[in-house]
């Protein structure tokens, strides 16, 4: 399972890297003379209703997908991990308030937040993924807090204090390295969720704006032709499935790889 995850996630990364250097056609170039072509030697996956090359769009769409995942995970981790670690290290009412606040945020749907932010700052991948990131903060805070509580019971924390470390030093040198495994697993899962969210939001028109190539956007554009040219929906759908599955499985691999003893 671990290698499957690495291969699938690696495939998405490879596609994104390849698209930086080369795509068969410009993924944004319209060609009114060659719309809705069936797969052929010139266009291995065919063209869409604007005459854009689908293979080129899938390759370039991988970039948007990875960018979306990175933005969401970075936003969520940068806010969630320090909050969770702090709540785990200093118990008492501020910690409780923090966690109840995070529960409240958890109850707030990510899509609603994305609509709000899109209305306020304009729809874009960055706006949509910041919204998804904010909505994911509680998940990181929760995992970080639970893992920190467990680490705090270990004597090496007290030993670090005996060695003269102050709280920030203990957090950076002893807590973070020892809670990294569950956080990486969470990050990988959050990455997969973000990919799905990006696709959904772009499908709704709240994420990537044309002409940015995006798998979710492609699904949206494929809808009118679902019965006449289902391949338009199949390729981006397959790409999304591969990416989501890949990053989910990658998380399990991280756990195995970091297990000491």
């Amino acid at each position, binding site marked *: 399972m671990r290698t499957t995850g690495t291969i699938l996630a690696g495939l998405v990364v490879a596609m994104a890297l390849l698209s930086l250097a080369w795509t068969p056609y410009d993924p944004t170039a319209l060609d009114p003379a060659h719309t809705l072509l069936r797969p052929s030697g010139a266009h291995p996956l065919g063209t869409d209703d604007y005459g854009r090359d689908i293979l080129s769009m899938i390759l370039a769409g991988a970039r948007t997908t990875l960018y979306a995942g990175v933005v969401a995970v970075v936003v969520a981790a940068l806010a969630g991990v320090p909050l969770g670690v702090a709540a785990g290290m200093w118990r008492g009412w501020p910690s409780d308030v923090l966690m109840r606040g995070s529960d409240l945020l958890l109850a707030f749907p990510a899509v609603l937040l994305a609509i709000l932010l899109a209305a306020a700052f304009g729809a874009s991948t960055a706006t949509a993924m910041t919204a998804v990131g904010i909505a994911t903060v509680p998940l990181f805070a929760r995992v970080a807090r639970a893992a920190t509580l467990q680490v705090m019971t*270990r*004597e*090496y924390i*007290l*030993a*670090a*204090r*005996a*060695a*003269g*470390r*102050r709280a920030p*030093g203990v957090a950076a*040198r*002893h807590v973070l*390295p*020892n809670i990294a495994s569950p956080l990486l697993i969470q990050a990988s899962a959050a990455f997969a969720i973000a990919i799905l969210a990006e696709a959904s939001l772009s499908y709704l028109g709240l994420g990537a704006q044309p002409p940015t190539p995006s798998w979710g956007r492609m699904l949206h554009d494929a809808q009118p032709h679902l019965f006449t040219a289902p391949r338009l929906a199949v390729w981006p759908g397959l790409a999304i499935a591969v990416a989501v599955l890949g990053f989910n499985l990658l998380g399990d691999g991280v756990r195995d790889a970091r297990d*000491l*003893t």
Partner: protein
Amino acid sequence: MIAVHGVTREYRRVTALKDVSLDVRPGERLGIVGESGSGKSTLARIMAGLDRPTAGTVTFDGRPLPEVDRRTLRSSVQFVFQDPLSSLDPRMRVADIVAEPLAALRLPGDRAARVAELLDAVGLPPDAAGRRPHQFSGGQRQRIAVARALAPRPRVLVADEPTSALDVSVRVKILDLLLDLAGRMELTLVLVSHDLAAVRYVSERVAVMRAGEIVEEGPDALTDPGHPYTRELLDAVPRLRR
């Protein structure tokens, strides 16, 4: 050197220490014995400034602990914990573990050289520096913990049950190491243990604890017990040879 005066420590419902007073004199080897739950570990932590009393005072060189600055206190009073598997961070290399007090207290000097010197002093091979705790046996791990405690050249070493997580065969070796180091480095040693033999082996003076109080204290507490509880404790030790 360290003076504990009228110290009480209460946790939510339990009183771990009740009005305890005890002096640690410079250069002595003090033993604290008692069964589990007698408050001896709490006392050890409070003496080392790792826990605060709910009432009473602890002074170091005549100054109350909260007033002693962190660098002075942490470089003067060091601690060895019971279970080295738990007290050594599994993700750190031995060199970083041993050098941690030097780094945390920003002590000057060549850290790598100091680590090599300390590893040698506790009887570990020089190549131990690059390895991680799980690659060592229990006794070796406790040697790593002792090396870390000695890194900032402390004057007092408090060891809380340093041998009880170890195999019987290596217990005496760790005790010998502590005795040897205390002699060579002019350390004041406080040994906390439920193991009467260990305490008798190491200490010049013994305090006997029960239920958060010191019931007896003196150089002959374990050889000529004055308190009935100490006698009870001594009689409870199983004798294998008759």
